[in-house]
């Protein structure tokens, strides 16, 4: 099979680089246009028009915003802790993007006799005839999202401003609490699937026109996971770390120019990740009508599901007011965690008898 480099065919490297580039560019574009979609959708929900001036119906608005942020003056507060201040936006942004490595966005496609699974961290074993991926995929995502908290906490601390510090402290308490609840709520799914590999979880949901989706088998887990993830990535109604009515802009008050843009991108990239993970775990991933017969349809279904969930996020933002801080902690520790534990016990009993 052509040229080999270090024991692997040339095609392997080409496929890997292509997958990484396509997924990365796609996520970047989605992030850019998610900001536009959010303003447009919330605008129409509140009987406004949203951005209209830049391009047809404001379609060039994200590019204009990007250029504006890029050329703004870079301000570093003189009393800030410089190293942590500079590194914090990067720590927030990188975990948001690298989680895409394990999310399967399609089935197996065949290019020039070489089978390529549409998932970045995966390869097709021709002797075993199946796809091998990271077999702790979900744990990897949870681990990376637990690193994302450092970006916000450090940004809050390093800015040396009271508002930023308050935002950082709130963020750390909130993200640790809801990380636990989110982790506990998806354990019930793994009890049914018996695996942590995302490829296998998607395969298990493939049968019978969508009725095998874990959304129907684990509705409580799906609901709790989605809500806890919203809290973990600081989306409204849980955006207390940057509550603008109390804390100016929370942890990113002192940030300007590209560094502020990085936090902005991290927030939206996290939203894409959470929606992609929810779609994979509960909505059958890339499964859909004819998805196995025509492999190119898999990514289309996957993207459609992700965009639908992102629309739900924006819908929630337009509908619900912000939670109070004690309500947030009460909801996390006294409602979601006990409910998730009960769900695990009930699932265990049912799975034992079936």
């Amino acid at each position, binding site marked *: 099979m052509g040229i080999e480099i*270090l024991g692997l065919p040339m095609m392997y490297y080409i496929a890997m680089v292509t997958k990484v580039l396509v997924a990365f560019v796609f996520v970047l574009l989605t992030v850019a246009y998610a900001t536009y979609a959010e303003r447009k959708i919330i605008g129409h929900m509140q009987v406004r028009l949203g951005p209209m001036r830049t391009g047809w119906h404001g379609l060039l608005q994200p590019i204009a915003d990007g250029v504006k942020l890029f050329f703004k003056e870079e301000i570093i507060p003189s009393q800030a*802790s410089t*190293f*942590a201040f500079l*590194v914090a936006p990067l720590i927030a942004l990188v975990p948001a993007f690298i989680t895409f490595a394990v999310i399967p966005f399609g089935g197996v496609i065949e290019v020039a006799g070489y089978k390529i699974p549409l998932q970045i961290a995966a390869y097709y074993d021709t002797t075993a005839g199946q796809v*091998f991926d*990271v*077999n*702790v995929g979900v*744990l*990897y995502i*949870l*681990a*990376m999202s*637990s*690193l994302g*908290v*450092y970006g916000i*906490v*450090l940004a809050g*601390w*390093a800015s040396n401003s009271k508002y930023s*510090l308050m935002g*950082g*402290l709130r963020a*750390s308490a909130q993200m*640790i609490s809801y*990380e636990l609840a989110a982790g506990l709520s998806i354990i019930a799914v793994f009890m049914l699937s018996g*695996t*942590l*590999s995302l490829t296998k979880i998607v395969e298990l949901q493939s049968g019978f026109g969508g009725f095998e989706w874990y959304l129907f088998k684990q509705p409580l887990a799906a609901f709790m996971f989605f809500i806890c993830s919203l809290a973990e990535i600081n989306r409204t109604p849980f955006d207390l770390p940057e509550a603008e009515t109390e804390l100016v802009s929370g942890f990113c008050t002192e940030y300007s120019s590209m560094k502020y843009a990085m936090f902005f991108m991290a927030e939206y990239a996290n939203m894409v990740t959470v929606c992609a993970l929810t779609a994979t775990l509960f909505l059958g991933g890339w499964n859909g009508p004819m998805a196995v017969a025509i492999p190119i349809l898999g990514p289309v279904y996957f993207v459609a599901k992700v965009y639908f969930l992102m629309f739900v996020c924006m819908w929630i933002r337009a509908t619900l007011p912000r939670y109070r801080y004690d309500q947030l902690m009460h909801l996390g520790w006294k409602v979601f965690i006990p409910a998730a534990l009960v769900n695990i016990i009930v699932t265990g009993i049912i799975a034992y008898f079936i």
Partner: protein
Amino acid sequence: METLFFLIVSFVAIVSAILVITCKNPINSALSLIMTFFCLATYYVMLDAPFVAAVQVMVYAGAIMVLMVFTIMLLNIRVDATKKHSHKLILGSIIGFFTLINLVVMLVKSRAALPTGPYSGEMIRKIGHTELVGREIFINFLLPFEVTSILLLVAIIGAVILAKKKI
């Protein structure tokens, strides 16, 4: 390829470990420690133990270090609070010297190839690391596991009693 990767990761691990003890600012030390934990997780992946790697990042880098950073932030330690104590320096260098001799002796005398256990790399990749760890914990080592959980329960209750005087 793997050797090159190992060398890169080791370089980062050693540099960040040195930075943990040389940084003046405690937050920067904590960040370097997180970096070291991350490199450790990479070693676990290279040793065919992805489950341990994920748990390493989740528990140490993700949970314990967040609490450390939280505490440092709230205590607001000054950067120049560290003073030099000569007697500590002498004692530390003596201990460091003996540890170095110990390590050199260990490296020279010890065998790199230990007797192989029942689990080979291929087997772990075939069955899955998580399954193997689960089986070992819940079948062969069930009693130690339960004892550990009782110990943790006692620690949790103790923490609650210490923190809350009036219940």
